[in-house]
């Protein structure tokens, strides 16, 4: 059998797992692994400028491909710098493996140089973690880490590797573990057949059904099945922020996103429905508004691969544990076999009501010829990219404008930090996407605040030629914070302004990229077209938008799903 050192086993196991890209940053505790990478590997390593960005890159890579993203960092500060990225991936159930160096086993617990208890620090935000104490255990630990990260409800896994375990002098027999066998870990994928029958009966008896689809449908690649299912029964469908693309944003039956900044028609349909079919969604507080007032007449069918998501915030009448794709296949078959039929007249009336809600055109905004409206900027991006770009977003008003005004045709096209809401996520995530799909159009929709949280990665983009397009909606403010202050704090703008904005154009140029400033709506489309035409250049578009815009609709705090602000002056109740 082949003899390898611990460090070599790390690299070899990754190779045998099919890992092609590794995002990382070296340091004392991982130098042996870096040396092994240098000597024996075809893995492309991307050296970031801050470890947080490495994790977000791996995350963007994972979100766009569905594969496990991998990163490598050193102990201590290298490891702690990954925490925000790990938490971001955890909240959105993204498959990821973080390999961190650790001080030698003999020094663990001694407050050694660059020692932090990474297993302890990351414990609440990982799906699982491994501290490897013997070199011989490395292949199995990494193999298991990838398996756990990518099966069941996906999530990040940390593998902590003490320095002595990597020792290049000590060689051990290496064999790739072909299979994983864990008696304590067997995620369920198939739904219980009796529950499936019950669910189909409930749907068939509905007069005002609505389908509510979240990120679980993305994770299980269920877009086609979701579409078939709602088309077969002519059901209205809404997506969560994480589920966008689970049905085409241009589909007739799609009501738009629901929740805090959801569309009027999506939130109204939920509130007035009598049966909700929740697929891979978790009744997050940004969706339900006040749970005690949540959808008073609805019977809830909740399908999720994670039993803890079911009846956590809103109790389900018909719980089904399983993967969305498998359960939908089971439901489709049950629909075929069942003699029950939907009440077509009731459904037609329901659609009529929904269409009346739609006619309120909650996303319309006042166009302007002298100021660029953020909504217009997103619509222009949609037009220029023909709706086909990967859109990676940061967090703030621009994120909601992107979610609402760019209809995504397919899953994995929309990439954002939904659960944790991490500013600084968008740009490195887009770099991960571009690494996976070098020929695709990849746009970052960001704000002047968020972009400055990982702007150092402009340097990485130059080194590795990662020509993403940065669409910065510059309102010279922490816009979402300002919106809340204007709405709920009598306009007291406590620290939501950025008083010394850098010259982003010069900054981009200083990093060797192209910078553009646009403030005239008439020039925007041409400027964006020019930017995307520069296929192998990173272009930073500093777009000066109307800073007065708020994101609407917006649910009213403590209210029900149907309590919304529709503009600065109009509310539903």
């Amino acid at each position, binding site marked *: 059998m082949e003899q390898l050192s611990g460090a070599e086993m790390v690299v070899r196991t990754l190779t045998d797992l099919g890992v092609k890209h590794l995002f990382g940053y070296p340091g004392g505790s991982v130098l042996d692994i870096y040396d092994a990478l240098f000597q024996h590997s075809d893995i492309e390593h991307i050296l970031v400028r801050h470890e947080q960005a490495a994790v977000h890159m791996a995350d963007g890579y994972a979100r766009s491909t569905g594969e496990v993203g991998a990163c490598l960092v050193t102990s201590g500060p290298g490891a702690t710098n990954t925490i925000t990225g790990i938490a971001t991936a955890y909240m959105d159930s993204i498959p990821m493996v973080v390999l961190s160096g650790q001080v030698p086993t003999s020094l663990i617990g001694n407050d050694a140089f660059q020692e932090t208890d990474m297993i302890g620090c990351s414990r609440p935000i990982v*799906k699982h973690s491994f501290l490897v104490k013997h070199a011989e255990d490395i292949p199995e630990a990494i193999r298991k880490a990838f398996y756990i990260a990518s099966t069941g409800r996906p999530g990040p896994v940390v593998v902590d590797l003490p320095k002595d375990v990597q020792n290049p002098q000590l060689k051990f027999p290496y064999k790739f573990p072909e299979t994983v066998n864990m008696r304590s870990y067997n995620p369920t994928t198939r739904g219980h057949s009796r529950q499936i029958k019950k669910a189909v009966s409930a749907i068939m008896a509905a007069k005002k059904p609505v389908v509510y689809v979240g990120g679980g449908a993305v994770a299980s690649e269920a877009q086609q099945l979701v579409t078939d299912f709602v088309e077969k029964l002519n059901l209205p469908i809404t997506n969560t922020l994480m589920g966008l693309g689970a049905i085409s944003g241009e589909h007739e039956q799609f009501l738009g996103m629901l929740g805090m900044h959801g569309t009027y028609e999506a939130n109204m349909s939920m509130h007035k429905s009598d049966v909700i079919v929740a697929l891979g969604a978790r009744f997050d507080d940004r969706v339900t508004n006040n749970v005690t007032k949540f959808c008073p007449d609805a019977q809830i069918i909740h399908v999720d691969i994670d*039993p803890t998501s079911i009846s956590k915030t809103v109790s389900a009448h018909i719980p089904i544990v399983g993967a969305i794709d498998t359960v939908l296949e089971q439901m489709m078959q049950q629909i075929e076999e069942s003699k029950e039929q939907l009440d077509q007249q009731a459904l037609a009336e329901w659609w009529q009501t929904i269409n009346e809600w739609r006619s309120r055109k909650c996303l319309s905004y006042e166009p302007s010829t002298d100021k660029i409206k953020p909504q217009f900027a997103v619509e222009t991006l949609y037009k220029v990219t023909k709706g086909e770009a990967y859109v990676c977003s940061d967090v703030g008003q621009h994120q909601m404008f992107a979610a609402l005004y760019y209809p995504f045709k397919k899953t994995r096209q929309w990439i954002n930090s939904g659960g944790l809401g991490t500013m600084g996520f968008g740009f490195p995530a887009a770099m991960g996407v571009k690494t996976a799909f070098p020929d695709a159009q990849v746009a970052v929709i960001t704000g002047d605040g968020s972009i400055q949280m990982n702007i150092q990665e402009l340097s990485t983009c130059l080194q590795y030629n990662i020509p993403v397009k940065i669409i910065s909606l510059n309102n010279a403010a922490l816009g979402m914070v300002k919106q809340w202050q204007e709405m709920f704090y009598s306009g007291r703008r406590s620290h939501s302004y950025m008083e010394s904005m850098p010259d982003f154009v010069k900054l981009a140029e200083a990093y060797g990229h192209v910078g553009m400033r646009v403030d005239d709506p008439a020039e925007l489309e041409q400027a964006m077209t020019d930017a995307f035409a520069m296929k192998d250049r990173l272009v930073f578009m500093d777009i000066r938008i109307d800073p007065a815009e708020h994101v609407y609709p917006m649910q009213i705090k403590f209210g029900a799903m149907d309590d919304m602000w529709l503009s600065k002056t109009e509310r539903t109740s």
Partner: protein
Amino acid sequence: MRRILSILLENEPGALSRIVGLFSQRGYNIESLTVAPTDDETLSRITITTMGDDQVIEQITKQVNKLVDVLKVADLSEGAHVERELMLAKLRANGNATREEVKRTVDIFRGQVVDVTNSLYTVQLTGPSDKLDAFIAAVRDTTEIVEIVRTGVAGIARGERALRQ
């Protein structure tokens, strides 16, 4: 309501901290916790007593089950079960009258004196937690309690029901 959860998990370093961390992270309380390896050394068995209504207990059970190291979880309080806790109590025992009275109370509760000095009795008692509570209440009137240590509850289902691999 008080519940007794039994957990069977991998006997691995860090496994216990994941359980304890989960409880604190999600705001569940732990009244007592005992842990030790089982007859199969690769497995540990934990008994946790906690408080919560049905909905909370259902969430706790599901959350614990979701931990990758955990094989099985059961709520013992759902059915007939045996629960035992062991207590060691160091009691002031000065003068014949007090010594007699303490000894008598210990006998009533079927405890044993496991260490003696001329001013102290150290006694051992086992039983369900409420029996130990009752002993404390009874002996408190007789003499000074110097110190007490309790193991927390270990529990097992009655009859055929078993938590095993």
